[in-house]
């Protein structure tokens, strides 16, 4: 009974499709896309690096939007979405921060440099980690989501700065390949691989946010029920 209902539920199909997309993108990343001329095989990490960044920023933007929504409407659903966005975004940001240095070592000769893009990405990682820490350290109740939302909106103001950093500062980090300007661009098959990989990562991000969101909502409902029970109980 439980299994059939979960098979019929649309989310199961979404998860399955995501998995399929991941497999397709794996083929494109490793075999379908041509090897880059100067950097060689290591360049293929590109298909993980950039989509992770895109997924991270989308999740963090979800967090920002949900936090703003919470400030306007005080809806518990918005708070749940904010938590989900921050956690998933932090996870993908971690992938960016791991794949970046792995790529940098053979290409730049060092693991890390302090250019604006890299520093700001690291700063964002710390910011959202401390966002989650603050959530843990404030007393539960109505204050916690308020403080968290106020913090998230503040932090979100840094996202555009990070995004624009490779445009504003002259950095070691490569310039944008997407929306970068006339002479940016990629070989067509590379672009296909990138776009498929991007779609796959965004889909994974979406699934994770959805699951976390549902979990958070369930936790909220459980807490409300528990309060009702506590009110009715004597002593």
């Amino acid at each position, binding site marked *: 009974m439980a299994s059939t209902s979960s098979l019929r539920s649309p989310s199961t199909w979404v998860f399955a499709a995501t998995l399929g997309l991941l497999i397709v993108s794996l083929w494109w990343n490793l075999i379908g896309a041509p090897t880059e001329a100067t950097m060689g095989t290591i360049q293929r990490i590109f298909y993980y690096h950039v989509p992770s960044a895109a997924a991270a920023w989308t999740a963090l933007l979800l967090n920002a939007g949900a936090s703003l929504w919470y400030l306007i409407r005080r809806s518990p659903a918005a708070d749940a979405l904010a938590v989900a966005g921050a956690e998933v975004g932090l996870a993908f940001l971690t992938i960016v921060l791991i794949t970046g240095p792995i790529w940098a070592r053979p290409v730049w000769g060092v693991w890390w440099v302090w250019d604006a893009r890299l520093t700001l990405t690291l700063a964002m990682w710390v910011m959202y980690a401390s966002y989650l820490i603050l959530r843990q350290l404030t007393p539960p*109740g*109505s*204050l916690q989501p308020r403080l968290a939302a106020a913090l998230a909106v503040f932090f979100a103001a840094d996202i555009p700065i990070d995004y624009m950093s490779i445009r504003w500062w002259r950095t070691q980090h490569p310039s944008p390949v997407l929306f970068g300007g006339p002479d940016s661009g990629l070989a067509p098959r590379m672009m296909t691989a990138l776009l498929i990989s991007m779609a796959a990562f965004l889909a994974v991000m979406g699934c994770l946010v959805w699951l976390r969101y549902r979990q958070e909502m369930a936790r909220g409902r459980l807490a409300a029920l*528990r*309060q009702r029970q*506590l*009110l009715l*109980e*004597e*002593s």
Partner: protein
Amino acid sequence: MPLLECQSVSRFFGETAVLRQVNWRCEAGQCLALWGANGAGKSTLLRILAGALRPSLGTATVNGAAVGTAAARRQTGFLSHQSLLHPHLTVAENLRFYAVLHQLPDPDAAVTGALTQVRGEYLAARRVGELSQGMRQKAALARALLHQPRLLLLDEPFASLDLQTVGDMRASLLELRRAGLAILLSSHNRQQVEGLLDGEATLERGRLSVSSPEVARA
């Protein structure tokens, strides 16, 4: 419309329900007492009514305005267990600061007035940090009365006051009640509040039982 109305107010701290669906009301010109053992939730209820704590469930209004709004805050005076005064400033400096926060037209006059009301004129120039417990309580009372609120919430107002001052304060409160203020006070001492009350209620395990509801003003 009652001056204070509190509808089904509950408050949790973590897993414990300190207040359970408390309903209460207080008319202008009434003085009500709140009884209860240590830890019964008296201070919690008063803090909620003063807008210093949010109820987990339920609502409360002061003169129609929800507690916590500026309109409600303007009409409420709150004496808490803490003095809410900064120890490094003098009593007058502290009170004057609050007078400005309340946007009173003449802060200095308000400070003098409030100190006179609690017979604490001699405290004006002294630093709060060096006051004795009772003197601090007087200063805190002056703070609560400063902006001539319509609702007074007093958490154990007579604690550590000497007999003389208790008598003075009782007289002041009677006068304020006559002037139409609603007064809610918590206490552990029946003797001290005798003759002041129009009604009373007791908190027990988070539930409020109103013992003599809406007694007409004597």
